[in-house]
């Protein structure tokens, strides 16, 4: 056991434990006086299970895991297809398998498997030998599970696959004309999409994002209440379990998407800075792992993991503050949820394995 623990990276571990503790406390406060009063305990158990899996995975040579990434990818695609057929429909979306009373969301794990497989494919070639078609193929590997997730439908989750594409500039570098092309493409696509693709309710969502106060009782309600919670928290916050927005239930879905608003209300701007700092350290450590990795594939995986965490951080923390559209994307260690928690820990286990092998080398 002692040998097992030595495979863990202490910097990453401390950051992780701190985020876990703060997240669980936040859930305790968010669940008080609601039917979900025990959710912090449940999340604590998921965290412990996740930690255990992380320790186990850290001891495995990442190269062995990378090698089985193709079959895992295929299996993941099958699971995503299967969930559309036999999955449980909750709130209009078919995202969950039900197993032993627990719901399981295969897409959470699938984005890490996709990252793993893409890293493996790109990492086993010298960058110069990888051509345009090869890169397009890799993009296709990301797009395929994304489309299956979109079909559920789960736009937020589908978006969290996008950071994997950052591996391409990481490998091949970036030319300015590509950036220009991207900007033009997104603008044209945006206009076209607004005119011909988006359904009225989707357009309405965008409009509400642009001006949440226009529809206070309807779609803009959640974000508006979240902004009130954050803003009224001030510099020092209202104190643990003392946030009026949280405790009087004005803040919606506060144990999942809006958990960070609870933290911001009760701990204030200083608390927000502290957590953002912890996430900054987490991302830094993941990128450290990428630069120290023995192989390209391992490096790509670690950098991709940083990109995915950053995406979650940006979309969730930005969304609850009203700076980004209201898209369901969880904040790691804060939002309650079994599938996402386990997936984050598994990914971090792999990263720890990479760091350990790099030191042993």
């Amino acid at each position: 056991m002692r040998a097992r623990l030595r495979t863990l990276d202490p910097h990453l571990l401390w950051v992780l434990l701190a985020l876990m503790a703060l997240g669980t406390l936040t859930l305790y406060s968010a669940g008080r006086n609601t039917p979900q009063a025990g959710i912090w305990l449940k999340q604590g158990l998921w965290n412990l299970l996740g930690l255990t899996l992380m320790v186990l995975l850290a001891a495995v040579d990442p190269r062995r895991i990378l090698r089985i990434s193709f079959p895992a990818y295929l299996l993941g695609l099958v699971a995503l297809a299967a969930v559309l057929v036999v999955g449980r429909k909750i709130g209009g979306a078919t995202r969950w398998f039900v197993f032993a009373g627990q719901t399981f969301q295969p897409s959470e794990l699938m984005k890490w498997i996709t990252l793993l497989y893409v890293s493996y494919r790109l990492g086993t070639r010298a960058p110069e030998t990888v051509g345009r078609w090869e890169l397009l193929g890799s993009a296709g590997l990301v797009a395929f599970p994304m489309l299956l997730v979109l079909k559920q439908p789960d736009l937020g989750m589908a978006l969290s696959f996008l950071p994997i594409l950052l591996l391409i500039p990481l490998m091949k570098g970036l030319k300015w004309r590509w950036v220009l092309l991207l900007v033009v493409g997104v603008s044209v696509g945006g206009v076209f999409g607004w005119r011909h693709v988006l359904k009225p309710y989707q357009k309405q969502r965008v409009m509400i994002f642009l001006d949440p106060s226009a529809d206070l009782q309807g779609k803009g309600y959640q974000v508006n209440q979240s902004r009130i919670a954050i803003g009224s928290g001030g510099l020092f916050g209202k104190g643990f379990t003392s946030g009026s927005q949280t405790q009087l239930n004005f803040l919606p879905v506060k144990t999942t998407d809006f958990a960070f608003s609870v933290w911001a209300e009760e701990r204030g701007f200083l608390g927000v800075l502290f957590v953002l700092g912890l996430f900054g350290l987490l991302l830094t450590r993941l990128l450290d792992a990428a630069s120290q990795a023995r192989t390209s594939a391992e490096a790509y995986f670690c950098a991709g993991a940083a990109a995915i965490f950053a995406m979650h951080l940006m979309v969730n923390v930005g969304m609850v503050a009203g700076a980004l559209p209201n898209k369901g994307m969880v904040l790691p260690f804060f939002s309650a949820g079994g599938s996402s928690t386990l997936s984050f820990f598994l990914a971090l286990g792999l990263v720890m394995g990479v760091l350990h092998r790099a030191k042993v080398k």
Partner: protein
Amino acid sequence: MEPRQRVLLQRRLGVFRALAWGLVLVLGSIYAWLQIVRHGEFKQLALQQAVKVRPIPAPRGLILDRNGYRLVDNRRALHLVIQREDLPTKPDVVEALAQALQMDPAALARKIQAYRAAGKGSPLVLKENMDEADIAVAERVRSRFPFLSMEVAPRRVYLGDELAGHVLGYVGEVDDDLMKAKPGLYHLGETIGKDGFEASGNDRLKGVDGQKRILVDQLGQEVASFGQVDAVPGHTVFLTLDAGLQKVLQDAFGEEAGAAVVLDLRDGGVLAMYSSPSYDPNLFLNRLSQEMVDRYLRNPARPMINRATQGIYAPGSTFKLLIALAGLEKGVITPQTVIYCSGKKNFYGRDFRCDKPTGHGALNLVQAIAQSCDVYFYEVASRLDIDDIYATAAKYGLTVPTGIDLPREKAPRIPSREWKRKAVPRDPKWYAGETISVGIGQGAVGITPIALARFYALLATKGRLLTPHLFLGLRDDQTNALEPAPPPIARDAPLDPKLWSVLDEGLSEVVRSGTAAANPFVLEIAKEIPFAGKTGTAQVATFVDKAHYARQAKHLKDHALFAGYAPRDRPQIAFAVVVENAGFGSTAAAPIAAKVVKYWCVDRFSNPLPPPRGRLVDPFSPEQPQQSPEAP
């Protein structure tokens, strides 16, 4: 990994690192903006939605009769309401709610709009005074519309039902017109008196609403309460009414229309006032049903009008006392003046007929009053100018409203030259022939029963012009005893004792041997308790002869009047009775007055009528309606 590739990778990872901390910086700035720069604004919003001010309605004071019997009580009732901040905004929600409660969606939407526009005030009441079936429905509807809430509120109960409908009036929500007429005085949804003493005594009865600040959750449910300011209950008020005497009037009128007033000669207090048909104020506490609109508002008998203070009737022969007074004071007759009645007399080329076609023969003033001879008073009137009559009426308070503490009292109509110029611009000239009709209380003369009663009170008191009133005093909260209020001022308009004794003699002869004595019931009571009064018969339409009159429909028949005071020696009460379309004053109105005299002078001591008892049973009150008097 080749070294060259590792170098490139490191460089690109450096960009990633910068981007990661850049992200942290941007997110941090957004939160700094919200939590530091805009902190005050959001703090205000958070407080606004969590802390609410709720009014605590003050219980309205009770209304008691002069003996302390309850006329108006409070019971608890459940209302279905929407708190002001929970008013739904979406049209489809409003429509669904209207459907669930079987209300008109457009009307509901308008009401919600009005309540939203008015900043603060009472909650919007959707359904009031719910019974058990209503509550079951409301609970079902509430599960679909969580913004609805139930509120316990005091409800008025008028224990006598129709006993004193017009006098007590009823309460309701303040209406838009009043809010506009007196801005700032009322708040939307406030309960105020709408009619009767509930309206005129509103300031005494209403009390001061309290308020509390409460912490509410997202569903608007109270989590905690703080900063409570208790309501100050309204004063409980004693009225001058005597519930038993009021009951005598109610029973005496039965199905007949009309009005009667009984005044206390000591201070002008109204001992009884009944307007028939009466109304039941309890029915006006709920939204008007079609049945009620038909019964009260569209009824040709106009039961909503208080005939005692708003009904203008030709006084008929009851007006002869004023003519006699005018003639005596002006000197055109003396108490001994004898005038011959042949059944009719010609003035200005027109025959004026006496009620007795064969004629009364030679009469002095006392006999003329007792027999109600028209010719005698035609003659007196012919010797007077209309403006003399008006001046006498003005001197004895007959030209203005009496000033009773009830809303919308009308002034009597006493004609004069100036009056005709204004009222009949087509024919502004006053003709002497018109004065002859005024001599017997016909023509343009119109008078309210309350004003007539006050005039006879003046005769009874030899010249005190009392101000009729209903407010007797407040109840002391500690002892529950009456704290009498000083009665409103009375004016002295003294009568010459010599002239007065002639009038008094004439009025008592009416009952003893004259027109009223023709009724055996009246005669019998007058033998027991001598009293004074004058019959009157006011024409509603003109007829060729008596046979023609007898054939006419009820609503064209004459109004019967009787006004007087009792007992004759040391009078205590004055009264006026009008019975519409009932024929002669002696047959219809005098017996009602006789019943009043009998009850007030005899029966109220030996055989008092029981106090009014509530017909309504309050399902929410464990307390039974109180039956014993409160005051000693």
